[in-house]
């Protein structure tokens, strides 16, 4: 029964195929976005696409390794993996290399490694381990706080390294915790904060605060029993505090480029001259990216035929803005195809997670899906102007060894865990 053949088929091939479709298509687009001459030499290490070829080859070795390790290893050693990973983040403060304002890299000779990418997988393991512990009850405030601490440590470390994008990714664990029974109040609170914050920024704090007060008082007047005065006053106080707090945060805490990005996203600037000027400064990337995608039309201009890609009009196109290459060269068809691949991959992982018999595997699977989802949401949303500019890569797609390997580890640990689910009993 336990032959090599059945073992072989236990891996979820759908996930693996989706993974490689994304990696392969990503690779084609990296070639397009980074080639500088007409002759392409796939192993040319002086070119990003050449390096990416090597990264992809190394990925195979990594996958074999990940699948060869016993599934129990990941659960048993998750704490150690987490601690090592956190130490590697701390080590950056001493030995890190600064690239584009973020101290997120270790440099080994010509290669660089970004530990924050791997920290996501480590945190997912640690969270899974903690929640699946028989002694943990997520409805218990103490356990909630413990879980938050596991998540907040890497989030704070990367924030201190000025890598805001990666910090936001840790928000993904909200989905995991919610699935595992985090009280609904957190969801409502999160939705409330997001809604009020965005409205306050867009329409001005006083207006939203007054509006919230009017609604609360009306509710109080209609049903004094259901909405006692004290509760009403408390809500008014909290809402106004949030409104003005967000404004204060926006104007005094956020850095200028972050203000600009939010202002651009919420279309706070109305003066056409200033808008025109913005297109040449901080809105340049987004503007060029949207233009490139738009110019692709229905069928795209064809592989390596994108004029805006070839002209390098979109900066960072082979990394964070890789999706604009897809949009330009493969058109609506190709870009939708990528979106659908991601959606299918995410749904497949979620489906598998729900099938897991061990809570550890399920929580980890949820962690994987949440992390990939947040990347997918923020990256593609940003490239198309739906979300303020936040620099994080598109999983499996963007150029970069650390990112590719981190997602390989993230996904293939889950594939391994999943393959083992029959043996759980």
């Amino acid at each position, binding site marked *: 029964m336990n032959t090599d053949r059945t073992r072989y088929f236990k891996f979820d091939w759908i996930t693996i195929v989706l993974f490689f479709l994304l990696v392969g298509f990503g690779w084609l687009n990296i070639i397009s976005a980074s080639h500088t001459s007409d002759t392409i030499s796939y192993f040319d290490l002086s070119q990003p696409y050449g390096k990416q070829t090597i990264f992809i080859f190394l990925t195979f070795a990594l996958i074999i390794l990940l699948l060869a390790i016993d599934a129990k290893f990941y659960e048993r050693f998750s704490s150690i993996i987490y601690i090592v990973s956190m130490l590697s983040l701390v080590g950056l403060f001493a030995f890190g290399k600064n690239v584009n304002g973020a101290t997120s890299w270790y440099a080994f000779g010509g290669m660089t490694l970004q530990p924050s990418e791997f920290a996501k997988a480590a945190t997912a393991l640690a969270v899974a381990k903690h929640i699946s512990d028989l002694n943990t009850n997520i409805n218990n405030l103490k356990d909630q706080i413990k879980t938050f601490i596991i998540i907040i440590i890497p989030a704070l470390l990367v924030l201190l390294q000025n890598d805001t994008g990666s910090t936001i990714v840790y928000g993904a664990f909200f989905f995991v915790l919610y699935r595992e029974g985090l009280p609904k109040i957190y969801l409502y609170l999160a939705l409330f904060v997001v809604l009020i914050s965005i409205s306050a920024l867009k329409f001005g704090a006083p207006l939203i605060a007054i509006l919230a007060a009017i609604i609360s008082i009306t509710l109080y007047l209609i049903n004094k029993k259901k909405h006692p005065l004290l509760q009403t006053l408390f809500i008014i106080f909290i809402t106004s505090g949030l409104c003005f707090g967000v404004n204060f945060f926006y104007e005094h805490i956020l850095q200028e480029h972050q203000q600009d990005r939010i202002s651009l996203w919420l279309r706070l600037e109305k003066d056409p001259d200033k808008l025109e000027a913005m297109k040449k400064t901080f809105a340049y990337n987004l503007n060029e990216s*949207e233009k490139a*995608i*738009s*110019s692709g039309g229905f069928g795209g201009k064809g592989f390596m*035929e994108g004029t805006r890609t070839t*002209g*390098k009009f979109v900066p960072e196109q082979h990394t964070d803005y890789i999706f604009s290459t897809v949009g330009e060269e493969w058109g609506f068809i190709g870009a939708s195809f990528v979106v659908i691949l991601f959606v299918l991959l995410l749904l497949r992982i979620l489906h598998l997670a729900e099938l897991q018999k061990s809570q550890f595997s399920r929580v980890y699977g949820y962690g994987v*899906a949440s992390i990939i*989802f947040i990347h997918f949401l923020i990256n593609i949303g940003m490239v198309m102007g*739906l979300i303020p500019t936040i620099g994080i890569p598109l999983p499996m797609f963007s150029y970069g060894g650390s990112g590719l390997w981190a997602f390989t580890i993230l996904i293939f640990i889950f594939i391994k865990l999943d393959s083992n689910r029959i043996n759980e009993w």
Partner: protein
Amino acid sequence: MRQFLLFGSVILVGILFISRLFYLQIYSSEGHNLYEDNAIRAVYDYPKRGFVYDRNGLLLVSNQPSYDVMVTPREVEPLDTIEFCNLLKITKEQFIKNYDRARRYSPRLSSVFISHLSKKDYAALQEKMRKFKGFYIQKRSLRHYQREVGANVLGYIAEVNQNEIKKDGYYLSGDIIGKQGIEKSYEKELRGVKGVKRYQRDRFNRNIGSYKDGKYDTLPIPGKDITITIDAELQEYGEFLMKNKVGGIVAIEPQTGEILSLISAPSYNPNLLVGRKRSRNYTKLHNDSIHLPLIDKGLLRMHEPGSPFKTLIALTALQEGAIDERTSIRCSGAYYYGGSRPMGCHCGGGTRVLNNGISKSCNSYFANAFRKTIDKYDNATIGMNKWSEHIKSFGLGNYLGYDLSIGKKGNIPDGSYYDNWYPDFRWGATTIISNSIGQGEVLVTPIQLANMMAAIANRGYYYTPHIIKEIENDTIPFQYTTKHQTTIDRKYFDPVIEGLHDVYGPNGTAWFLNAPGIEICGKTGTAENFTKIDGERKQLTDHSIFVAFAPKDNPKIALAILVENGYYGARFAGRIATLMIEKYINRTITRKDLENWVLTYTLEHEYHKPFLGEPFEINAKSRMMTVEEYDALRKQIDY
């Protein structure tokens, strides 16, 4: 239910992204347009514009280089405006004005910022061009006129305007197009086809290679050289003789319809309408409302033909059998008809037959011939229609169809024309008798008169007058090699031609204008003309008209001359005609005194008279004035 939060979010975001893609790539996408993609720079290679040669192979028009500064507003980045303006030698206001104009045209497409830089400015600018993003230099070619003649024939080229761009997709802002003359008529042949090289550009505005290996690039096709029918020497001489006069000369080679010269006086140096000073000079020429130098008098001046029209009266009368060459009348110095006032005649009176009717230009004779032609038919409408058909077969009363873009139809009335005038149909030959002496309702242009003389010289046919003689590696349009037959039989021409020959005889109206060794046939003419001064119709000195062809047998040249307000036909037009003929046939002028006479006298005072606001005399009562006298007068009273 908790598992559905992420599940649902994934599907929702997927749908949201695909909708956004749909909006960006399908709904609001303008598609990919090679012309508007600012990642692709098209660099145009303008071919050499074809040269123009005269009928004897003399080079008339060639090219000279010129440099335009182009701008693509969307790509312009903040620049050192002061330095840029200094390099271009313009003011800051001018900079702003030109920039706004370019932006209005299109922020995405390039258009001309400053045209026609001098070579020196170009050299200085070229080195610093890299500093000014969004601007580049486009080399173009300007015309260079080797000889300062024939401005009206050669026409000019200028930047295309918005209408022309809309009409013909070939042209882009800043392109050059022929606006007048042969430059316009043979624009397609002369311009060739511009070539284009497309470059892939990066965001720093650098060319990083050719776009798709030049798959969409084209090579320029050079413009064709053309040879025109103008005899530059004759043209030059005509313009020389027409100094200080307003009017036109059209000379045609009868056997081919080739226009030997087309003179519009006063003329101007065609080089004035080239380069940066073009628009200033153009305005100056345009605003000269006394001489109207931009109006081609040979093609556009409609006037009564006067006595030259009598040749056609004679020919139609002969063809209709209303008279024969022996038909005689007695002229008593006037022609009496109907109850009204008689028509005067200057022939001196006596017995008139066809021959001396023509040579002495007897009004009575032709009034009689005309009347007989019309009265031959039962009613005047039919007679007039028949007459009109004959006249029109000489190319009068409609556009001739020559290859210059401007012209006038003139007017040859027919029966229905007068039926409309006189709704009770109570009109007859005598009602419209002034047509018989080239007045009344008949209107012609000088080129129509010249063509009429060519048809007479050919004894009954003509080729549509044209300016094109040869197109490099091509044939000229067939309509210029197609014979047009008139409705008059060949045999009726000889007596008329004899009459025209006798105009130069001892008793003819041009007796003093014989050219040595050349048998000229000609006809004098005067045309009354009027102007309006403060709403009041006022008669001016008659136009001096002359038509001629020579030699009598095997004619080489037929011409018509209009000298505005030159008084009687022989005075200015006749003198110029004989000199032109001598120049063309003998290639040299022996009668220097005659030439001097033409050059000595000016008509400037005639042209200024109506504008002075004083009463004035005309015709014989108006004193002849030499150029010297006129200049002295001008100094005295500032005209």
